[in-house]
């Protein structure tokens, strides 16, 4: 497992996937409205999160959960919640 915080790991994936600056990736930033993502980006982001956090979330992120992940903060709290349980 990585030493980096969940926040940093989430941020890194978003920066790579969406080609945005790190400064834009604030907890409140919405993928669709602020970070210029389209629906295909969202699917790819979720798959990237599943890969990076496979130890924490144990399995795939169900569709019913992934549609609620609209901001950077949503993702961070979702992964924290999953890894605590």
């Amino acid at each position, binding site marked *: 497992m990585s030493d980096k915080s969940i926040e940093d790991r989430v941020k890194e994936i978003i920066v790579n996937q969406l080609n945005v600056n790190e400064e834009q990736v604030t907890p409140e930033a919405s993928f669709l409205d602020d970070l210029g993502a*389209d629906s*295909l980006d969202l699917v790819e982001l979720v798959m990237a999160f599943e890969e990076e956090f496979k130890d924490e979330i144990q399995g795939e992120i169900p569709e019913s959960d992934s549609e609620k992940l609209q901001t950077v903060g949503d993702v961070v709290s979702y992964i924290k919640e999953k890894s605590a349980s």
Partner: protein
Amino acid sequence: MKLTFDNKIALVTGAGRGIGRAIAESLAAEGVHVICVSRSESSCGSAAEAIRSNGGSAEALAVDVGDSAAVSAACEKLLKEHENIDILVNNAGITKDMLLLRMTDEDWLDVINTNLSSCFYWTKGILRPMTRKRWGRIINISSVVGIIGNPGQTNYGAAKAGMIGFTKSTAREIASRGITCNVVAPGFIETDMTAELNDTIKTEATKVIPLKRFGQVADISNMVTYLASEEAGYITGQTFSVDGGMAM
């Protein structure tokens, strides 16, 4: 016109013989590295060997294209070796002809699975790195039968028409990533598949072809090679009939 292929890698299913082999050879002649896929090791092996002995670059991969798990494992392995497949040609196909009233579930499902579901398995398997690269070509080989129908081929016609619908939806999903997805629909082409037809059927078939002859595998591979090139980047979601004018 000179076609541009810049260090590209292609995967062609059903590359052991017929149209698929011609496509593999044509792409290889343009300097593309070709992964030749077929069910039997000897079939794809000899296709790859023929390309290499002509100075091209190719490798063989034996997979049953209708086996979802096998295709997904093959893609995973390939993407470890190559990082990215740039050009996917879904060409593998079988026929199990029978009038509808006599067709078994097995005949139906086998043809749907090998001809149509295989497109879904391969496209899904190679798409992620393609979207990251923001460049790709997916070419699905359908048939005139998918457009105008043919008695005795409800299974084949359904699968081939299904490929056209699959292509259009896929083209719309991935257009923003610089990936095009098109269909080539051959008519009667001189291959092992049509060699099985008896002379009466061949004569009758020729009557309904406006150009009055069967096509050659090169007629198809020329079109596929163009669609795979850099130059065809503004064409997506289309079906190209190469059938001597049968469907118009």
